[in-house]
Every structure is written in C-alpha cells, then in structure tokens.
C-alpha cells in the first residue's frame, strides 16, 4: 500500500511551487483570485503587486491582462456599481451633463498627484492588449508593440470584456483630466477655466490623453449599451446620440480650422485612440483632431 501511494504520488501532476518563476495554471488562477479578493476591499496596491509579475512575464494572457486592467481601474477610482447608479440618475447627458457627471465621479488633483489619469491610462493599455485569438496586429494601430502585452487601437480586435471595461477606464481618464484642467464649479460642476488643449501644440500630454479617452469611450458604448441594466441603457443611448453627432465633426473642424488645413481629416483618426499619438505639429492629424475635440467640450461644458 505504501508503495502504491508513493507510485501514485509520483505520477501525479507537479504541485504548486510559489518560488517557480515559470507560471503554471494554478499560479495564474491563484494570482487572479488574489487580485479579485484584494479588489473586493479596494486594496489597489496589493492587487497590482500580485498581478504585475505575471503581466510582465511570458506567461501573460488575456485573463491576466484584464486582472491588471482591473487593478489599475481600482487605482483610477473605477467602481462600476457606483458609476452606473450615478449614471442612471444623471441628467442632460446629451450635452453639458456628460462632462458634469464625469467630473463629479472623478475629482482629481495633480499636486500631490493622485495618479488617477495615469492609472486609467495604464489600465486602458492593459485592456487594449486583451485581443481576440488570431488577431493580426497592424503596426500603425498597435500600442506597446515591443512589450509582452501589445495592444490594438481597433476595438473589433479586442475581446468584449476589454471593450466594456475600457469605457469605464475612459470615463476615469476623461473625468480626472477635465477636473484638473477645467476646474469645475463646486456646485454647478461647470468648468470655470476653458480646457487649454485648443491648439495642436498644446495637445501633447493631457490633451491627447483626453481625446484618446473620449474616442475609446465612444468605441465601447455600443457593446456596453446592449449589456447594461435597463436603468442605465437609456443614459448610454443618449450619450451615444450626442457623441455620434459631435465627435467626428469636431475632429474634422480641428483639422480644417485649428490647423488651417495643414492636416486633413473628415473623421477622428484611429491612431488618436493612443494617448501618446500627438506630436504637437499642425501637420499631425492626431494633434489637430485632439484640439478640435477640446474645443467641442469647451463649447458644450457650460
């Protein structure tokens, strides 16, 4: 009997070894479990510490990428149940109400830096890398190409959960940047300072990040609307109609008016989904389109 027990133990699978640098399935399942448990108590730092080694390893996969996105989402103050509840109660989402809602959800300060926009951006990177199996990366719309988690700016390349989550991360990115740069009134939540990113040169950095957030948010609205509870579906539809009528026009105006035709665009460029895509030159279509989007928000956030 003892020999049999030894025999059967020897032919069993290798046990879990936490010191093994090569992840096995248990390590991956376990790390994701640990992240979910940490994020149940909003322990964002712990969650990131648990998932980061796997995210940066050759063992990374979509499960790990989405867990990483969720960990950054926690640091970006994404709380989906709360966000949806507030969204269902928000008004005038087809105009100024959208920007008011965003700054109310994501107040943010740069000194000391609460890192909300940074976390939202990094979370978006992680979610963008959760692509469908067999996706062919097009270099022009690929982000973090040299990393172990290359992402696609094309939303149809990504898995559905990633697109859904990017909408929430984008809300955090937009809301925190609007709060920092528009300095909303404490009562009316309307901007007291115009957004500064209204020329191609000023879009580098926050302006480009805001524009990328707006476009990624818009990309994901279609899929998340159909999978939302009825109480927020109407709110999403209102936002979709509003952005559908305004976003591409704003980008086209940015190219034609802000950059005086030095660059050409009739719709928002796919590459502007990357927050690092703006060069600040009037010949750069991304910078021009981003400036057009900032002007669009300035004109409606009143």
């Amino acid at each position, binding site marked *: 009997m003892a020999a049999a*027990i030894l025999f059967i133990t020897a032919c069993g699978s290798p046990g879990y070894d936490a010191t093994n640098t090569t992840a096995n399935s*248990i390590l991956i*399942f376990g790390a994701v*479990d*640990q992240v979910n448990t940490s994020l*149940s108590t909003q322990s964002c730092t712990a969650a990131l510490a648990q998932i980061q080694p796997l995210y940066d390893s050759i063992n990374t996969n979509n499960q790990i990428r989405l867990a990483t996105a969720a960990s950054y*989402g926690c640091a970006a103050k994404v709380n989906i149940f709360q966000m949806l*509840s507030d969204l269902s109660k928000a008004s005038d989402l087809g105009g100024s109400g959208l920007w008011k809602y965003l700054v109310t959800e994501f107040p943010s300060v740069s000194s000391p830096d609460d890192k909300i926009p940074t976390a939202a951006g990094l979370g978006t990177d992680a979610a963008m890398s959760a692509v469908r199996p067999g996706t062919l990366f097009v270099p022009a719309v690929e982000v973090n190409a040299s990393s172990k988690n290359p992402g696609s700016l094309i939303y149809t390349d990504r898995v559905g959960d990633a697109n859904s989550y990017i909408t929430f991360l984008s809300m955090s990115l937009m809301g925190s940047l609007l709060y920092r740069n528009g300095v909303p009134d404490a009562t009316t939540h309307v901007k007291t300072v115009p957004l500064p990113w209204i020329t191609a040169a000023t879009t580098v950095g926050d302006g480009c990040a805001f524009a990328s957030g707006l476009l990624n948010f818009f990309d994901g609205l279609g899929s998340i609307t159909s999978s939302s509870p009825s109480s927020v579906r109407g709110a999403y539809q209102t936002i979709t109609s509003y952005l559908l009528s305004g976003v591409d026009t704003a980008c086209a105006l940015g190219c034609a008016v802000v950059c005086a035709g030095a660059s050409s665009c009739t719709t928002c460029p796919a590459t502007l989904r990357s927050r690092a895509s703006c060069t600040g030159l009037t010949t750069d279509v991304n910078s021009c389109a981003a400036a057009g989007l900032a002007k669009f928000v300035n004109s409606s956030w009143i």
Partner: protein
Amino acid sequence: MRILFLWIALWCGAEREVLADEFHSLFRSPRAQAMGNAFTAVADDEGAIFYNAANLAGNRGFGFKFAALSLDLSNDLISSYTNFQTLFGNIDISSLNKFVGQHYYGRGGVYASLIGPGFGISAIYDLQVGVRLKNTAFPQGTLGAQRTYGTQFAFGIPLLGKGKKKSWDLRFGMAGKVLWRAGGYSGLTLTQILTLDASQLTNKLENYGIGLGVDMGFQLVHDLSPLVTFLAGLSGTDLGDTSFTMGNDPQKSNVTAGVGLRYKAGDVKALLSYDYAHLLDSWDWKNKSHLGLELGFSLLKLELGMNQTYVSYGAGLSLFLVSLMYVHYTEEQSGISGTDPEGRTLAYAAVKFDL
C-alpha cells in the same frame, strides 16, 4: 495488489485537471467535515459508501439511517440572510457593492442509508445554491444552483486469505451510482451580475440529466496492538468523472490517499487521520491536505481537524434512535490556500437503528 497497480497505471494516463476553486463533493459526511475531511482511511459508518467502499469490508453489524437531514450554510449567509434576499429584488445598482466579497452558500440534503457486513447502500437528495461576488473595480462572480438525487451501492471485501497473518488485512471495495442532476456552478460575467435575478437560479434547476459513476478503493489494516490499529486507504471516486446528459456539471473524480490510527478500549474510541486528496489534480498542496482527530464515547463524539489550512470542529450526540451533530468548517474558494476562505456551519439530524 495487481488490481491496485493496474488501476493506478490507468489513472496515471488520465488528463490532469486544474482546480481553480472549491471541489464540490457528492456527499459531505458531517463527521468527516468536522475531522477536516480526513476520512478515507478511517471511515467506519455510512460515509464509507462515498469515501472509501473498501472500508465496508470491516463492518460487522447492520446500521440503518433514515430521514437524515443536513443543512450546510456559509457564515455570511447566516449573518446577512436578508441581504441575500434583496440581491434578487429591485435594488439600487450601487448597493450591489455591499455584496462584493460576501460568500452566500447553502446546501441541504436528505439521505437514507443501510450498511451491513461488507456492503452499504444509500439514497441521496442534495440541493445547493451559491452566489459569490468579488472585485468592485471589475466585478466577477460565481453562480451555483445544483440539485442532485440518486442512489449509491457499495461493497467491500477482504483480499488476504485466512492463511495470512491475522494482524494484517487488505481490503478492496467498489461502488456504483446512478444520479440525476440539474444545474451546476458557473462564472458570472459583469453583464450577468448587472442583470442578476432569481430566474437565473431557478432556470438552472429545471433540466435533469442522468449520470452513472463508479468508485473504487483499498484499505490496509494492521493491528499494532490489541488496542491500536494502523489504517491506510486509497480511494478513487467518480472514476473518469461522472458525466450527466443535458450537460449539467459533472461529478469530478477525486483520488485520495489517507492514513490513520484507531484506538479502542471499551466505550472509548479515538481516531487520528490524515488525507492527501486530489492526488492527480493540479492544486495548491495545502488545499489537498486534511487532518482530523475524533474522540468517541458511548453517546458523544467530539471532532477536531484542519480542513486544508483551516480549523474545523464538531460534536455529535447519539440518543437512542436519534443522531445529532453540529459542525463548523472552512472551505477554500481559490486555487491557492489562504486566498478566499469561506466559513460554514453544518447541522445534521438523523433517525437511526443499529443492530
């Protein structure tokens, strides 16, 4: 012994299963749970039908239990039952946050069993429900609703002839089962969480599938002295998984090795046991480990154990025709020990008749 090695060799070639969460066993003996689920080598009651059929070869008398009722609830469910109810009502979305990190689990069972010299038969009805939400940033969850009923027959025989040394015995046992099951456990997507309602639970419980399964086991018994016996067991339950028509959750196989010591003097009996479960599955080794101790007197049994890495304990009382038991134990819900423990309380009552 050749049967034993042939059986092991077949199993070595089987595909390995990676266990990411709790193993949902077909039957939970309250005694076993109180002893940290270390029962393979030492099971000596109707639990042997399910834990290791070989142990039935050592049974001398008859025991009949009917109307055995078992209720197993997570501590979170006990402490916030009203919250659980509102989870399926019309509540504000933001209040879902208070359910994140909570474990709602309930399991109820009705059993009847008859054991005799070398055999046992049991009828079971089992209903379990589980709802678990995690992660406020990107909500995830598990929804379980499963109903199983059926019967299991088991026998155990001694393999060593009378000419062998009497202090040693090697026993072999098999069990066959026919089960009907509806439902199972599945992950909840964000969309499903946001649109959660009671119909998702009840819909799972509608379509029954039938499944046939086989268990097999060995028990080695060695009398160290007139009072002390060494026991070792090796058991495979639901060999190759017991699958169900209609695609309901299969009853997963589990190969467990265990050792134990039994002390018996008059009305006083003590059991010490250790099981290493899921030998062929990939799982944190601490999740596979079970340790138990039982002190038994004529009317009272007291148990203490370590289920995985968590303390378990229980007490049982036998009064004439009635058997009562209270158990507290904790079950790991993650692939890695210490990540996501779920505390539970189990109450058990049965009408029994022993000969």
